């Protein structure tokens, strides 16, 4: 039995196999329609998240399985003071696999110590969000046909943005990848995230100016400046509009640029960009469901 708490819990070979499965699901959905019949996925979401929860639930339904859902902490036993350990021991008795989101960093690690079924981390505060990273990798694979030899621009909140941290630790394992980190000074990538870049001698540059680096990018990954990651409302208001992507800013971008965003978007990508064929963020949502289907199959050890 395995748990997926961080993207680094998966080897490059396993990620490649998940990509292959997801691509096969896209091409042959009928093959997968009944593979998880009589299996139950529990979605324990102790923090609001509509799309990740729906993605997991849609994935399980498409595999023919069933879903047990806890969608907010207020309606669960956690509100009565139950520990993560006890909650997980209990839910392990009902479900075959658990997807868990929790506002506190490391909560899914605690869950994995006490679960008798596989646990998937569906986001723990600003820490890890491995299925978003798998979604991002599948998106890059589908849009670019490869995961290596790419210049990846990451823009916005690079300090608290867990999707960015996970994507860096995943992508830096592929040869020829270069990162361009675009953020205000206050929201730069933390030093511990840069450790694998320095250790692996992965080239990266940091800038505050998106427009000047735009022509270099194969991928542009935009992120939202999130209110819930700030202790101070003034800092949030001052920084939230720092980096907004508009059609004008894309004028000198490559014609085959892929624009990604983990969503939800607030205003960091102008809606005028949505019509641009390079905007991949809604296709990215769809890929998220397929990669979660592949992950559920892998953890439940179900073969097509």
């Amino acid at each position, binding site marked *: 039995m395995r748990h997926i708490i961080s993207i680094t819990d998966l080897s490059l070979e396993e990620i490649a196999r998940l990509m292959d499965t997801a691509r096969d699901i896209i091409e042959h959905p009928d093959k997968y329609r009944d593979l998880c019949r009589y299996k139950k996925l529990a979605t324990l979401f102790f923090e609001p998240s509509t799309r990740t929860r729906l993605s997991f639930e849609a994935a399980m339904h498409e595999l023919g399985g069933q879903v047990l859902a806890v969608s907010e902490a207020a309606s669960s036993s956690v509100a009565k003071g139950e520990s*993560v350990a006890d909650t997980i021991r209990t839910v392990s008795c009902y479900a075959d696999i658990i997807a868990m989101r929790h*506002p506190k*960093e*490391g909560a899914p*690690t*605690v869950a994995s110590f006490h679960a008798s079924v596989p646990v998937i981390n569906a986001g*723990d*505060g600003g*820490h890890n969000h491995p299925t978003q990273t798998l979604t991002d990798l599948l998106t890059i694979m589908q849009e670019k046909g490869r995961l290596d030899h790419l210049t990846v621009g990451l823009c916005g909140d690079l300090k608290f943005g867990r999707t960015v941290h996970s994507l860096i630790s995943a992508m830096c394992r592929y040869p020829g990848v270069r990162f361009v980190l675009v953020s205000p000074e206050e929201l730069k990538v933390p030093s*511990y995230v840069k450790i694998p870049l320095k250790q692996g001698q992965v080239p990266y540059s940091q800038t505050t100016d998106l427009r000047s680096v735009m022509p270099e990018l194969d991928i542009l990954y935009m992120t939202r400046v999130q209110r819930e990651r700030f202790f101070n409302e003034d800092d949030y208001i001052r920084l939230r509009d720092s980096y907004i992507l508009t059609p004008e800013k894309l004028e000198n971008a490559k014609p085959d640029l892929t624009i990604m965003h983990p969503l939800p978007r607030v205003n960091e990508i102008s809606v005028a960009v949505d019509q641009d064929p390079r905007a991949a963020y809604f296709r990215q949502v769809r890929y998220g469901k397929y990669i979660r289907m592949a992950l559920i199959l892998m953890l439940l050890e179900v073969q097509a």
Partner: protein
Amino acid sequence: MNIDSINNGIVIDHIRAGQAMKIYDFLDLGALDCAVAIIKNAASSKMGKKDIIKIDSELNVDLNALGYIDPSITINIIKDGVRVRKYHPELPLTITNIIRCKNPRCITSTEQELPHVFRLTDREKDEYRCIYCESKAGV
């Protein structure tokens, strides 16, 4: 000042001056009913001043954890009045409930029953990180 030599027990030597009580508390030596001597500010050719703890009993604890608190320490194991082993504690791979995670977003900040466990992530830099949130120890 005379302190009796011990027959079976442990001498923790080369403790940085002023650190003895921290180790005394960590090892919970106050709970022992054997003789325990704390020598503070003893003269040391290497360190100038040092602290020493003598425990007249065998302790069933992992003394390597002391390597995190004070890497300069020497541990001497005494049997039948003779020193049978002398060593420096190695940095332990994990340390439990010696330091607390200071990250306010860590699950340990709300679940009081959880042990605070840190894993050695960089031996050269003596760097430990919380096993839950991966925050660096002491930050």
